[in-house]
């Protein structure tokens, strides 16, 4: 038996596989047993009611997708009255993703979701879709620090901070979030992108730009997870383009303590449980008894003969 448990900044998960915010809802229990997952992370909420962006809200790109869903939100009464109770019947810890246009707004919302039934808060300071003003907090170290500190002050729950990949130096932002009290980092949100229908000369998204996710982005985010892992002491949760167990393990070897699976669930609703099974199988095949032994176990020494085997396949 492999021990798949992992401690994520004060919250212990039975295993390291969970959904990425905004790509999951309880409807997925039609397809998989949600109780198998390490945690349940729900779509980012805001205090304000919002309708989100105009359609089309998604489009396809090479091995990826763009979304400009925005954060449609039914408001707090709906959150407390409908969303929270809907998850009561599932056993994995519930992680609530929050977003706000101001530092105070972050603090207020963090306080408001600090309720029984909520196991951790994920501060989405990186969503590029918010209509407010423009730049997300996560694009620079100082605003990151302020937003994270505000949330930290408002809740005693484990605090995960989700970073944006649209930055020059993700390690610097990671350190700022850690310094301000984050218990774990989620790396990363989507890449700001756009696509154009050349026949109509119009943007393919109603909101013109949106976030790129899916396998296409994985190599860039794996690099960022590796940098964050080396920059901070707190655990890093890898997120971006994970489709298979091998993809998830790439993140783990680069330094992730757990992974979030987003877009893949749209393509294969059973993606998360398949990733989980595959990780367990990998551990057995490689004689790994404790999953956490794999975290950051990237080997960068001199390349030895076996690695060059492909250069002499017929020998």
């Amino acid at each position, binding site marked *: 038996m492999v021990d798949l448990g992992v401690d994520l900044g004060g919250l212990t998960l039975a295993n390291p596989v969970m959904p990425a915010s*905004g790509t999951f809802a*309880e*409807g*997925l229990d039609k*397809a998989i047993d949600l109780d198998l997952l390490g945690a349940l992370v729900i779509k980012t909420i805001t205090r304000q009611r919002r309708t989100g962006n105009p359609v089309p809200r998604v489009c396809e790109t090479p091995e990826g997708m763009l979304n400009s869903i925005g954060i*449609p939100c039914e408001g707090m009464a709906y959150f407390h009255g409908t969303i929270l109770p809907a998850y009561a019947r599932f056993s994995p810890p519930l992680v609530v993703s929050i977003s706000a246009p101001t530092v105070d707004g972050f603090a207020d919302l963090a306080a408001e979701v600090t309720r029984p039934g909520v196991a951790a808060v994920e501060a989405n300071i990186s969503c590029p879709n918010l209509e407010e003003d423009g730049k997300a907090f996560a694009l620079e170290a100082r605003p990151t620090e302020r937003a994270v500190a505000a949330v930290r002050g408002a809740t005693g729950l484990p605090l995960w901070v989700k970073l944006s990949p649209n930055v020059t130096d993700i390690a610097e932002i990671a350190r700022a979030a850690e310094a301000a009290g984050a218990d774990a980092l989620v790396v990363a949100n989507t890449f700001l992108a756009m696509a154009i229908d050349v026949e109509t000369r119009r943007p393919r998204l109603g909101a013109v730009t949106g976030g790129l996710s899916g396998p296409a982005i994985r190599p860039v985010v794996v690099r960022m997870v590796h940098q964050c892992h080396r920059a901070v002491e707190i655990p890093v949760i890898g997120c971006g383009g994970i489709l298979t167990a091998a993809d998830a393990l790439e993140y783990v070897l680069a330094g992730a303590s757990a992974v979030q699976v987003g877009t893949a669930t749209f393509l294969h609703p059973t993606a998360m449980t398949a990733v989980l099974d595959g990780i367990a199988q990998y551990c057995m095949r490689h004689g790994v008894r404790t999953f956490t032994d794999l975290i950051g176990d990237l080997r960068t020494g001199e390349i030895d003969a076996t690695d060059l085997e492909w250069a002499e396949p017929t020998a």
Partner: protein
Amino acid sequence: MVQAMLSTDRADDRAQATGIPPATGKPAAEGACEVLSNARSNAEYLHLVLAAAPPLTAVRAGQFFQLRCPGGGPNAPFFRRPMSVYACDADRGRVEFLYKVHGVGTRGLAGLTPGDRLDLFGPLGVGFTLADGWRSIVVVGRGVGLATLAPLAELARGRGIGVSAVLSARAPELLMSVERFEEIGARVFTVTDSQRTSGPARVERLIRGLIAEGKADALFTCGSNRLLEMLQRLGRERGIPGQVALEQQMACGLGMCFCCVREFRIDGALAHRRVCWDGPVFDLQEALSW
């Protein structure tokens, strides 16, 4: 001959349309199904028949599947494609689709040959509801919209409800599913553009006739904006209930991504609903034409 294996959606499913998460989930499954045939129905439409086993065959009228259409390279269909069930026979283990080649995904479908495998995910969504006490219904559809309406007609006939089916097309040779509806036992009316019988005014006159005959306890449609508006007007005027099956681009098909929203007028107020989760079948009057 296709046997009726479709059931209706129960009231507790309908409750999902209010946004309240369902207490129990009917399973939706992912499965690779063998292609039994994939033949052209006419110049524009293809008919795909797949071998399928439960739970894939536990389909209710108006539900859909998300198909993983074949294709490779940078323009491969990345998302699944939503497709209404045209027919389903759980006993014989068959699920059927009727589709039109539109873009890269449906082009991939058109390339399937018997023996190939296609990955289905479903059945999904909230289908049609037949109220107790309805004795006759009218279904009005055009093109692939008829794929969605055929299982409804079949379900109604199975319950002894009379079905008048108004089938519309650009030209007689493009009329779809006439035999399927006749086999089901529907009274079929065909209208076409080339014969100048398909305009809203003509179709409205036809339906007013059916209402007058007492053959229209409810109105059902799918796909065409003009037909929707006309039926809404008739429904309001004569107090006849109805339902409409809507389409919208879908990524997840399970209510998770919120890409498939449309606006509805519910109790007088505008509200967003997810077509994949709260629908694709909605109350005729709540839907907004577009």
